[in-house]
Each structure stands twice: as structure tokens, then as C-alpha cells.
């Protein structure tokens, strides 16, 4: 029973990690850099979601239109994904594009700086007090023979799996996805195919940021307290998931996100919860000792460069 209960909790945490890890992994695969501001984009997405949801609720209260609360949630997710994708594109345009040919360390430092700017920017804009995410759907708990599942948990897991699948299909079957796969293999010659790589790079940031925003709102639904630093720890953990999945692998990032959720929850089941991260990430470290390229990663050393 406890095992099953924890399984469900692990799936929920895994959903957050997976959605955020996808953004790290996509950007890495086409530009060979980690966007270390990505955790903070998750935070920005959650705040944008907060704004959108509050606005929709206010409009409904004013009688502008009558929307059922589930529809408000769906609209909040879609609209916030759309808005946050622009945040990603701006970060790429201002922060990373000028550094395309610079040493990778410059891009890493820039990413960390952008993260701090987003955090403090939020602090200046909204002040230090936390905001609470509006409760859009009321919690319904189902008792499945002693295992308790809430409608929110089901929703979080289903939505994140749908989004990960949609992304996978997009990359497999569209021409933009094809261009992303080509860039992942050898970005230097991609322009020779008539493909504008800046457009592909911007789109990749947009997609990753949209997924981070979805994660932010789902997080807000489950844990409705938002603060400007909420993206740091979860962002780093999702980064670990991206590494564990294999740099640049979409399936890898998704599965590793869930795996990380499982490891954390089950470690906490056995050991005191204060030791959770210490033990969980020691396990991750151990896995990486034996599989340095992660589960689905390739060794990139053989990759061609002009």
C-alpha cells in the first residue's frame, strides 16, 4: 500500500523534473550549451500562470464570461506556455546568440547571470512576499483500496506525459523537428541546407520554455505557494535528470525525470527525509560513474566540427 502510494507521489514529482529536463536537453542537443537560466524560466512560467489565472478568474467574477474552472486551468496552461515561450526566445536572442562561437564557459556564466536577473527582477516587480497560486480545481480524492489518488495528481501526470509525447512526435515528424535533429548531429552544415539556424535555435528555446511554464503551473496546482527562488533547486535537479537521460535525448530526459522522482521518493521512504537528497543524488552519481553519457546519450567526441 505504502509502496503504491509512494509510486503515485513519485510520478507527480517525476512529471515536474521530466518537463523541465526536456528544455535543458533540447537546447543542449542543438546548441551544445546548457541553459542554466532554465530553472528560473520555470519560475517565470509559474508566475505568468499565476497572472493569467488571476486575470481569467477576475474576468469571470466580473461577469465578462462564464468559464468552468477546468477550462480556466486549460486556458491558463496554454496561454502561459505561449507567453513564456517569448521569455525563452528573448533569453536566447540577448543572452546566448551573441555567444554562439564563444567558449562554452561564457555561455554557462551568462545563463547563471540571466537566472539571477530573472529572480531579482521578479523580486523588484512583485516584492518579497510569496504569492499563492489560485486554486482552480478543487481537490477530489479517490480511495483505490487504501491508496489515495487525487484528481490533481492524475491531471499532472497525464498532462506532462501528453506534452512529452507531443514534443516527441513534433521532433520525429515535422520539418522543424527534422531540422532540430540535423542540428543536433552537425549544426555547422545545417545552413547549407537552406535552414535558418537562428530560427531553429529560437524555436527550441521557445519549446523548452513553454514546457517549463507548463511544469510551473502544474507545480502551482500541487503546491500553490510561489516565490522568486522556487526554480533554483528544482531546476538543478531537472538538469541532473537531463544528464542522466543522456544529453540531447528527449526520451532519455523524460524517463530520467521520472526515475529521479522515484529515487527521491523511495529514498525518503527508507531513510530520514533530511538525508533524502544526499542519498538520492549519491545514487545518481553512482549511475553516472558507470554510464557517463547517461542512458540514451552518445559519446560526442567523434562529432564533426568545421
Amino acid at each position, binding site marked *: 500500500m505504502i509502496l503504491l502510494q509512494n509510486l503515485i507521489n513519485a510520478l507527480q514529482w517525476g512529471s515536474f523534473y521530466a518537463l523541465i529536463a526536456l528544455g535543458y536537453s533540447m537546447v543542449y542537443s542543438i546548441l551544445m550549451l546548457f541553459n542554466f537560466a532554465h530553472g528560473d524560466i520555470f519560475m517565470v512560467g509559474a508566475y505568468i500562470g499565476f497572472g493569467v489565472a488571476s486575470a481569467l478568474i477576475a474576468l469571470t467574477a466580473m461577469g465578462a464570461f462564464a468559464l468552468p474552472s477546468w477550462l480556466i486551468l486549460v486556458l491558463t496552461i496554454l496561454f502561459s506556455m505561449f507567453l513564456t515561450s517569448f521569455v525563452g526566445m528573448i533569453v536566447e536572442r540577448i543572452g546566448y546568440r551573441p555567444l554562439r562561437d564563444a567558449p562554452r564557459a561564457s555561455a554557462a556564466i551568462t545563463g547563471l547571470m540571466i537566472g539571477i536577473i530573472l529572480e531579482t527582477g521578479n523580486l523588484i516587480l512583485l516584492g518579497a512576499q510569496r504569492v499563492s497560486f489560485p486554486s482552480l480545481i478543487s481537490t477530489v480524492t479517490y480511495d483505490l483500496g487504501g491508496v489515495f489518488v487525487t484528481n490533481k495528481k492524475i491531471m499532472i501526470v497525464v498532462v506532462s506525459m501528453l506534452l512529452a509525447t507531443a514534443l516527441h512526435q513534433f521532433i520525429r515528424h515535422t520539418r522543424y523537428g*527534422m531540422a532540430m535533429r540535423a542540428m543536433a548531429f552537425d549544426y555547422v552544415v545545417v545552413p*547549407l541546407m*537552406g535552414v535558418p539556424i537562428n530560427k531553429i535555435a529560437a524555436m527550441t528555446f521557445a519549446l523548452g520554455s513553454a514546457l517549463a511554464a507548463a511544469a510551473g503551473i502544474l507545480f502551482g496546482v500541487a503546491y500553490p505557494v510561489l516565490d522568486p527562488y522556487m526554480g533554483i533547486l528544482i531546476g538543478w535537479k531537472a538538469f541532473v535528470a537531463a544528464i542522466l537521460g543522456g544529453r540531447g535525448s528527449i526520451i532519455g530526459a523524460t524517463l530520467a525525470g521520472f526515475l529521479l522522482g522515484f529515487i527521491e521518493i523511495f529514498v525518503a521512504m527508507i531513510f530520514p527525509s533530511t538525508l533524502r537528497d544526499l542519498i538520492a543524488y549519491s545514487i545518481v552519481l553512482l549511475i553516472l560513474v558507470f554510464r557517463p553519457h547517461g542512458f540514451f546519450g552518445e559519446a560526442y567526441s567523434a562529432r*564533426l566540427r568545421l
Partner: protein
Amino acid sequence: MLLSVEALRVSYGNIKALHGLNFEIDEGEIVCIIGANGAGKSTTLKAISRMVPAEAGSRMTFQGKDLLEYAADKVVSQLGISHVPEGRRLFDNLTVMENLQLACFARKDNDQIKEDIQRVFSIFSRLDERQIQKAGTLSGGEQQMLAVGRAYMSGRKVMLLDEPSMGLAPLLMMSMFDALKEINREGTTILLVEQNARLALQFAQRGYVLENGNLVVEGSSEELLENPEVKKAYLGA
């Protein structure tokens, strides 16, 4: 005149690769640049396709347009200049078909694309059989066919070819050059660079000899094949 290059200079850091090249290509021609390893042959092609920046003072015009105003992807999609790079550089993780489709990324003429893909498969029937195979699993000859096919799909006014003979067995080499002749007959102007000077001069109508970043000799293929210095340095006779 289709393409004209004037005072083309390119440097990699402090190393000067091209010291001011001047050459021209007319529509429908096959022109080759021969030269030793490191003479600047690949750099010349990369400068035209905007893969490496040309230094200030360099001028390149294509059909009267200033080529330097176009980014690398626009040189392909708007001017129709395609480039088969050194070492083929296929996307090994994509299928044969996907490699060809990616080369049409900026094209909107869907009916023509279908026709062109069929044309590539009729020129290189080996590719037809391998449509859904990953490019990385092809043999060397098939990879070269796909590299040329990809260029055919992306832009067809001019094709820049970097050592198309490299790594091919003599028989395959011959059929590759036959295919290129056919593409040329359909209206594609070809500029190729080759270390294999004899082969290049048999294929091209005109040629230039590149030495240490300077064009030192130019002439018709017959002239170059008879030129004593070219003979001594590049034809091994």
C-alpha cells in the same frame, strides 16, 4: 557572367588563407580549381557559401546581386547556390529521404519538390532502394550520391563541389562524374575543387590553379593539361 569574385581575402585568425582571388564563372559552365592540400580550395568554396567570412574589400556578385549581403542559408534558398562540403557531412542520424527533405526546408513548391526527389532517385537509383535507411549506414559511394542529391534539392543554379572524388573507387568516380555532367546539362553551373587534377580537368571546361592562397594559372582544360608547369606539379608527368 553568373558569379564573379574579386579580391577575395579570407583569414583564420592570423593565418591568411586567401590573398585576393579573382575569378568568374559563366552560366552553364563547369569550372574547376585545382591545387595541393592546404592551398585554399575548400576555403574558396566556403567563402562563396558564406560559411567563412570574407575580409573587407572582398567583392562577390551573383547575377548582379551582392552575395555578401546574404547569410549562409539565404545563399542556398534565395540565390540557389548549393554546396557539397568536404567529407560529405551527411546527417547520419536522418534517413536518406529525410536528408533530401531537409535540403528543401525553405522551398514551398511542393509539387516540384516531389518531382525533384524522383529525379534524384532516377539519377542515383541506389538511393531509391535505400530511402528509409539512415544515411550513416550507406557505403562511401552512396553517401557521395546523397550529398550531391541533397545539393540538387537545395539549390540548383550553381553547385559547389568539394572533392567529389574523394574516397571513391575508380568506377564509382566515373559514374559520379557522369551524373554530375547530366546535372550540368540540365542547367546547373558547376564549380568544383579537386586534388585529383587530371580527373578535374577532364571533367571541366576551364580551370584555375590555386597555390598558397593565390590563383597562379588559368585557362581551358586543354591548355592546363598541356601546360608544362601544371603537368610537372599536378599531373605527375
